[in-house]
């Protein structure tokens, strides 16, 4: 209470200091570092680039600036001996608490001003997909907490050591550890949290949840240390040890510190965000479990209820088994870590079930025994928060249950069968999902989503069907555009926030153009085999995938940033053409560049995609346009790159820093895939006798028989089909 009364005076005094003012101004402008220099979030959604990166960079700068301010304030007060006056009136530890609170208040004020000042800037850059709540959550979680951590570490170090130099070293060590050894451990990089992407079109709830959890652990840890270090503040002219013993006499503070440290350890060790999947990715023990020969699964009815406020899910599955052995059989299920089994009933009788601790590829093994009856109806009910795979903890946020977005896969929806196959004749899965009324479900398969009921609590129950146990479900604020094309009906589902961008690039026209052109020239992709396809935009998943009846593109393809990428086409519509052509070259036909590494040659899905986009542009806008915006552009890019000093003299590359080197190497690799390869393809087109002949070859390649072991289209396959040798395509 007393400290509260002293706070305003201390706060005003602090604000009047020039050092404080300098730190505040520098912190205010520091987010600019995230736009130009320090860009830890690599995914190029608009909010990653203009909200997450500035906030994280601001956090790093603020950690250092406010840490230094804390140390210098403590040091200055001791050095100038103002403390002789204040200590005679207020006990030094109380005064220290007041000073620290004033610093926290200053940081809070700075954070508020920074977040507010950057709001119009972010909003202007991000455009129509800007989200206020993401902006403020980023500044609070990514930046604000880091300021506080800087101050806690700085003050603790100073209270213990009494030395400004030592405290600065401790502060810098914290930042150095965060940026090096701890950089790829999501629970340890406490200043610059690991964020894969901030979504523009969907929700970032799960990302913020992870960061908040990590920050909470650190807040508890640093808070505990801070209280302990506060006991070391020298009083009555005593030494460090004597002061500590005097301070610790009242047990409240040490007890509070120990409680905080205990909670920190608990939240660190028992974090609910990621699982304990085996770190050895070569171990596939669940795939090696032999199937039972005399048991078949004939059907599955799943009913799931996501709790969009708590991020959890509860579900009940009814599996129907045909047991021809005449004996009891032990079945193995794959459960998502984080889920608990509430009930397991076989033909109405409770059965014993054992959930194994071992986890592999985000799956945990459940073991239970069904009776000898020929037909068994097994009811499994389960609930929990779906944990993500710890081996890809840097990608947290892909699995999500929130009010604005849901993405659930396989065992997240219904426990997977590990040692039972489904009856290929009769197996049917029916899923029912209860969603908030504002959400549109998209099941990633052929079956359509039907509305079953509108419930009194404002939710809606949806049903969708399929013929596999596994399924993928997206739900969110989706806009659905139905486009009739020569290949069939395309239902394009994209995030409502993206409507303005999609309208601008005339999405419907683009879809129709690409679908018609590619179907005519290359054939129908597997995903449209039934004359119907769902084209789904999802939250960032780093790529896309296709299945019969559905094809996925993540939002990175549609960001204003990407739509301005000149290597993919002139203007948003043409980039969109490029991304849609990937339905043929990339998804319809796979290239080994899915596991792309920078050192490999120019052959990739991009070459044929860029080439096909050029052909479409030529058809749409004429030869002159295509020559200028595609062929000439490829040549210019190649030429200017070849003029680059380091490309002509690669022996000097070693003299550059690793970042500069990798940017040059990356640039070269992009250039070879996006500019060199299209030129080679153009040459091939010429050599095989023109566009028509070349299109025929591509048609053959697209529709060739696939080897399931190695489904990739290689450069050699392509050259063979053209009857050419590699050197035939050398560019002069």
């Amino acid at each position, binding site marked *: 209470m007393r400290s509260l009364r002293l706070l305003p*005076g201390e706060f005003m005094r602090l604000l009047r200091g020039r050092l404080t003012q300098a730190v505040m101004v520098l912190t205010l402008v520091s987010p600019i570092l995230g736009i130009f220099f320090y860009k830890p979030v690599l995914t190029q959604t608009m909010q990653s680039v203009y909200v997450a990166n500035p906030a994280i960079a601001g956090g790093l700068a603020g950690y250092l600036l406010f840490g230094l301010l804390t140390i210098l304030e403590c040091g200055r*007060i001791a050095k100038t001996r103002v*403390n002789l006056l204040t200590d*005679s*009136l*207020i006990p030094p530890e109380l005064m220290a608490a007041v000073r620290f609170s004033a610093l926290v208040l200053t940081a809070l004020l700075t954070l508020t001003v920074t977040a507010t000042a950057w709001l119009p800037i972010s909003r202007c850059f991000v455009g129509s997909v800007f989200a206020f709540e993401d902006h403020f959550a980023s500044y609070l979680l990514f930046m604000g907490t880091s300021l506080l951590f800087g101050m806690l570490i700085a003050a603790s170090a100073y209270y213990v050591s009494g030395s400004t130099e030592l405290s600065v070293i401790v502060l810098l060590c914290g930042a150095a550890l965060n940026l090096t050894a701890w950089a790829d451990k999501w629970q340890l990089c406490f200043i610059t949290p690991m964020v894969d992407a901030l979504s523009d079109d969907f929700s970032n709830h799960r990302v913020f949840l992870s960061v908040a959890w990590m920050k909470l652990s650190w807040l508890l840890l640093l808070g505990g240390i801070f209280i302990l270090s506060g006991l070391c503040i020298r009083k009555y002219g005593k030494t460090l040890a004597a002061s500590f013993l005097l301070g610790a006499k009242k047990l409240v503070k040490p007890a509070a510190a120990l409680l905080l440290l205990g909670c920190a350890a608990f939240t660190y060790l028992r974090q609910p965000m990621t699982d304990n999947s085996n770190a050895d990715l070569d171990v596939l023990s669940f795939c090696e479990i032999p199937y039972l020969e005399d048991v078949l699964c004939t059907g599955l009815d799943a009913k799931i209820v996501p709790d969009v406020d708590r991020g959890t899910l509860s579900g009940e599955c009814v599996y129907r088994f045909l047991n021809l052995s005449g004996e009891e059989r032990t079945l193995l299920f794959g459960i998502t870590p984080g889920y608990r089994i509430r009930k397991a009933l076989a033909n109405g009788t409770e059965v014993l079930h054992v959930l194994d601790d071992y986890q592999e590829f985000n799956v945990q093994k459940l073991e239970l025994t069904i009776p000898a009856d020929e037909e068994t109806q097994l009811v499994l009910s389960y609930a929990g928060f779906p944990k993500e795979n710890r081996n890809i903890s840097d990608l947290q946020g892909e699995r999500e249950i929130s009010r604005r977005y849901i993405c659930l896969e396989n065992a997240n929806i219904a426990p997977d069968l590990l040692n039972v196959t489904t009856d290929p004749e009769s197996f049917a899965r029916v899923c029912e999902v209860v969603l908030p009324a504002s959400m549109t479900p998209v099941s990633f398969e052929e079956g359509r989503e039907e509305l079953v009921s509108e419930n009194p609590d404002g939710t809606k129950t949806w049903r969708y069907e399929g013929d596999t146990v596994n399924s993928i479900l997206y739900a969110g604020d989706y806009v659905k555009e139905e486009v009739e094309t020569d290949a069939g009906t395309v239902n394009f589902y994209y995030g409502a926030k993206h409507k303005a961008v999609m309208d601008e690039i005339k999405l419907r026209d683009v879809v129709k153009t690409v679908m018609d052109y590619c179907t005519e020239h290359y054939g129908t992709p597997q995903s449209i085999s039934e004359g119907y396809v769902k084209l789904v935009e999802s939250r960032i998943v780093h790529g896309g995938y296709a299945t019969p009846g559905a094809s996925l593109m993540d939002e990175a393809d549609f960001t204003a940033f990407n739509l301005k990428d000149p290597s993919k086409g002139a203007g948003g519509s043409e980039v969109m053409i490029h991304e849609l052509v990937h339905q043929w070259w990339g998804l319809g036909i796979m290239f080994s560049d899915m596991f792309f590494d920078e050192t490999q040659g120019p052959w990739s899905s991009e070459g044929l995609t860029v080439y096909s986009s050029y052909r479409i542009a030529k058809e749409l806008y004429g030869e002159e346009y295509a020559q200028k915006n595609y062929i000439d552009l490829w040549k210019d890019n190649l030429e200017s790159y070849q003029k680059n000093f380091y490309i002509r003299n690669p022996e000097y590359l070693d003299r550059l820093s690793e970042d500069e080197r990798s940017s040059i190497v990356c640039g070269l690799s992009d250039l070879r895939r996006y500019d060199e390869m299209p030129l080679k393809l153009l040459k091939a087109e010429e050599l095989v006798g023109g566009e028509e002949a070349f299109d025929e070859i591509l048609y053959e390649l697209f529709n060739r028989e696939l080897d399931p072991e190695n489904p990739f289209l290689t450069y050699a396959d392509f050259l063979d089909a053209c009857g050419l040798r590699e050197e035939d395509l050398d560019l002069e």
Partner: protein
Amino acid sequence: MQIELKDLSLTYPNGKKALKHANLKLNAPGMIGLLGPNGAGKSTLMKLLVASLLPSEGSILLDGKPLREKERELKQKLGYLPQDFGLFDELSVAQFLDYMAALKQIPDPKNAVREVIGLVNLEEKSKAKIRTLSGGQRQRVGIAQALLGTPELLIFDEPTVGLDPEERIRFRNLFSRTAGDRLVLLSTHIIEDVQSVCDHLIVIDHGMIFFSGTPSELIRSAVGHVGSFIEKNGNSADSKGLQVTSRINTGDGIRCRVVADRLPADARPEEPSLEDAYLYLISQGTLEKTTELPDDSSLKCRKAGPDAEKEEER
């Protein structure tokens, strides 16, 4: 208010014994002068009184209760001017005093600040940043903050350091005026500061209290130990091991005024002044010390200059 020191000792963590078995009683109202050479233990005693230090042995009683129990009460009644204190340079005089008034929880800070600024004669500088002030002006700010809120107990450690002679006289008068019904403790190594204003004197040296009483009692203790003689060749005071308090050129030669336990035969007895009495007391103390502890390093420190005390205590 009554402060009582009972067998009070303080040994610093570095082993230096700064105060040894001090016993004292201080009663309000009163204006008490704490006299002693540099490094005598004055500042240590004051820091113990304001609870900035804890005694190694013995205790301090505030109105009969141990100080540790009444620490908060003491701090609410206290105005303290330490030696070598610092100020917040970025604040103006008025802002700094406002800040201190907040720490002191003074109910009407505006008026209180205006009042003390007037008392120390800093009206013209009240809006000036502290970094622009002279040494004397800074000292006045220090005095002003101690006076804020009319505290019952005022403790000034060498308050006149850095002030010019005119200001010194002004402040001496200010201290005696502010004393009123309060308890004022003023430490100094300059006799003039306490001569006219203090009704009680304490003399301290080597961490021990040698005297506690009225100024006239101190003077009386030196009667018969002050004399003077004309210095001639081979008859210098130094060669006789006497403590010289002044040398005056006269027609007959240089007249030396000396204090000594036993005056030389040729010395003319003189009426002791307060300074004579103080020097006599100190010389006696030093003599005892020298015979008692010939190797005590504090003796060397005493001659090391005005900063000696600070260095010893850090």
